[in-house]
C-alpha cells in the first residue's frame, strides 16, 4: 500500500508558521490535486512530503512507513518540478537514466528501462539529444520520464504544466491522466489551474493560508462548495457572488436580493441577516420577453463573449458586472437592457461574515 498520510503537519519559516497542522489521507493509487491561491502552502506541503523541506510538527507516512526522518531518496517518491529541472549537460537518455542512479541494475537492464520509458513517452527518437534542443513539452516529458523510470511509490508534481502554452498543456494533461491510469501510482499534483484540477483529480484539496478548506471529488466541490473561495475557484467561468439580506416572517425565511423576494425552503438553522448569494453563469440565463424565474436581475449588456457552443454576457449590475449565459444562436446586443433569471436551486448561500456555505 503506497498511500500517503499527513497528520497535523506544521511548517514554520523562522517565527512565521506557513502550514498550520494539515490532516489528509491519500489512498494508494489516488490522484490528489492541491489547489489554492499563491502562497497558501501547496508547494511547501508537497516539498515536506518529498523530504526537501524539514517538518516542524506532525507526521508523514508513506506506504505505512513514517518518513519524517528519512532522506528524500529513502522515501521512494519521485518529483517533477515546474521548471522541469532536467540536467542541461546530459542527454535525454542520461537524464532519464539518472532516475535509476541508486538502483542496483546492470547496464543492459538500465538501458532497457530507459528505452521502455522513452517509448511510453514518445521520446525514443530524441534519446541522444541535449535538453537545449528540445521543446518545452519534450523537456517536461523527459522530467516525467526521469520520475517514471524508477517506478516510485508516489509521484509529486509541482505545477508541472504552467510553463507550457495552452494547447500543449491540454495535451500533457491528457498524457498525465493516461499515465496515471496505466501505472496506477499515487499522484499528488499542485496546480493553479482549475481545469487541470477538475479534469485530473480523483479528489481535490483546496488550501488557503496554510490550512485545508475542503477536500472532495471534483463534482462534489462544484456542487457543494464549502465557502466562497472554493465556489469561485472551482468552475469556469467564475461564479457570481451577490450580497443579499434575509428575513423571517411567520417562521418562513425569505431572501431579498436586488428587488426580488424569494421564499426559501425550510432549513434547520436560522440564517444570518447578511448573506452572499452565489450563482454560476451557466445557471443565470438571459430571459426571453415575458419569461420569468425565481430570481430576476436586470441590467445593460456590457460585453458579449461568443464561445461557439454558448455565449457569455457581461451585464452591468449595481457597481459591477455579472456574468450570465445566452443561447449561442440569439445573443443580446451590447448596450441593450436584458433580464437575467435563475431558478432557486441554482442559488447557493454563504454567510457574509465568514464566507462559509450555509
Amino acid at each position, binding site marked *: 500500500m503506497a498511500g500517503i498520510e499527513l497528520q497535523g503537519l506544521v511548517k514554520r519559516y523562522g517565527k512565521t508558521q506557513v502550514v498550520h497542522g494539515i490532516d489528509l489521507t491519500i489512498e494508494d493509487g489516488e490522484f490528489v490535486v492541491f489547489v489554492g491561491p499563491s502562497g497558501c502552502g501547496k508547494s511547501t506541503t508537497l516539498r515536506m512530503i*518529498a*523530504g*526537501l523541506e524539514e517538518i516542524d510538527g506532525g507526521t508523514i507516512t508513506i506506504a505505512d512507513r513514517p518518513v519524517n526522518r528519512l*532522506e*528524500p*531518496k529513502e522515501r521512494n*517518491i*519521485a*518529483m517533477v*518540478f*515546474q*521548471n*522541469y*529541472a*532536467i*540536467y*542541461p*549537460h546530459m542527454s535525454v537518455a542520461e537524464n532519464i537514466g*539518472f*532516475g535509476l*542512479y*541508486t538502483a542496483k541494475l546492470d547496464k543492459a537492464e538500465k538501458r532497457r528501462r530507459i528505452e521502455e520509458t522513452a517509448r511510453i513517452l514518445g521520446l525514443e527518437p530524441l534519446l541522444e539529444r*541535449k*535538453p*537545449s534542443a528540445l521543446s*518545452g513539452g519534450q*523537456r517536461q516529458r523527459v522530467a516525467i520520464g*526521469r520520475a517514471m523510470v524508477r517506478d516510485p511509490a508516489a509521484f509529486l508534481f509541482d505545477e508541472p504544466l504552467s*510553463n507550457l502554452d495552452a494547447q500543449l498543456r491540454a495535451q500533457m494533461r491528457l498524457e498525465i491522466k493516461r499515465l496515471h491510469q496505466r501505472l496506477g501510482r499515487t499522484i499528488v499534483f499542485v496546480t493553479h489551474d482549475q481545469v487541470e484540477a477538475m479534469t485530473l483529480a480523483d479528489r481535490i484539496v483546496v488550501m488557503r493560508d496554510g490550512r485545508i478548506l475542503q477536500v472532495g471529488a471534483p463534482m462534489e466541490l462544484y456542487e457543494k462548495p464549502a465557502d466562497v473561495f472554493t465556489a469561485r475557484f472551482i468552475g469556469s467561468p467564475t461564479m457570481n457572488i451577490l450580497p443579499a439580506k434575509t428575513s423571517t416572517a411567520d417562521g418562513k425565511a425569505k431572501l431579498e436580493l436586488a428587488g426580488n423576494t424569494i421564499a426559501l425552503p425550510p432549513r434547520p438553522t436560522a440564517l444570518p441577516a447578511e448573506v452572499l448569494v452565489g450563482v454560476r453563469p451557466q445557471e443565470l440565463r438571459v430571459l426571453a420577453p415575458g419569461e420569468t424565474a425565481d430570481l430576476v436581475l436586470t441590467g445593460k449588456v456590457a460585453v458579449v463573449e461568443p464561445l461557439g457552443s454558448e455565449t457569455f454576457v457581461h451585464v452591468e449590475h449595481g457597481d459591477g458586472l455579472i456574468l450570465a449565459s445566452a443561447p449561442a444562436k440569439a445573443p443580446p446586443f451590447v448596450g441593450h437592457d436584458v433580464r437575467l433569471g435563475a431558478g432557486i436551486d441554482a442559488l447557493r448561500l454563504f454567510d457574509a461574515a465568514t464566507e462559509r456555505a450555509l
Partner: protein
Amino acid sequence: MSAASPMALRIEPGRIIAWLLLFGGGLLMVTPLAFMFATSLKDSSEIYDLAFFPAHPTLSNYVTVLSDGRFLRWFANSFGIAVAVTLSNVFFDSLVGYTLAKFQFRGRYLVFIAILSTLMIPTEMLVIPWYVMAKNFGWLDSYWGIMFPGMMTAFGTFLMKQFFETVPNDFLEAARIDGLNEFAIFWRIALPLVTPALSALAIFTFLSNWTAFIWPLIVTTSKELYTLPVGLTSFAVESQVQWELIMTGAALATLPTLTVFLLLQRYIVRGVVLAGLKG
C-alpha cells in the same frame, strides 16, 4: 549565435570611432609583443639597431634557448606549478563557493565576509607573513613553498560562489530525490553547470601563476627551483646580457598562455546553465 545580419554591418560614424579606438588600443598592446617576437628572430649583432624587422631572420636563438637545460627546467617548473595550483583552485574554490552559495549554516555570512576581506589585502603585504610561515614550516626553497599561498584564493571562492548562486535549486533538489549524495550533487550536477566560470577561473589562475614573479623569487634560492619569470630575469642580471635570448625565452613563455586560452575560451562563451530550464 547566428551570423550578424546585414543591418548590423551598416557603417555609422560612432562605429568608426569605436573601431579606431579599439585599433589604437590593440596596437598599443600588440607592439611590445610583436617587438619581442621580432627580436627573438634577430642575430645578436642586430640587437641594438632597434629596427623592427630583423635583417637576417634566424631561428638560431630558439635552438640555443631550447638546448639550454636551465630554460627547459624552469619552463617545466612553471608549468607544473601553474597546473597544480590551477587544479587546486578549481576544486577547492568551487567547493567552498558552492557551500557558501547553497547551504544554510550558522556563521555562513561571517565566513563569507572573512574570505571577502582578504581580497582587500595586496600581495605585497602578505609576502612577509608568508615568508615567516614558510620558514617555520620548513617550506623555504621548495615547490610547495612556491605554491602554498595560491592553493586557494578568496577571489576564486567569491567568483564561484556568485556563479553557484545562479544555479537553480531545482536541479540540486531533483538530484537529491534521484538519490545522489551531497558530494555527487556538487560534482556531477552543480559543477558541470558552471563550466564557464570554472574556465574563467582556470585561465585566470593559470596565467597569474605562470607569470608570478615576486613570491617565487623570494622563496627560492636554488636555481633548479626557479620559475620561468625568475629564471629569465636571472639571465638578465648576468654579466653579459643577451637580450635576443631573453626575448626568445619570453616568446616561448607565451605559448602555454595562448594554448590555455584557446583551449578554454569556448567554455567561457557557452552559457550552459539555462538550457535545462524553461524557455
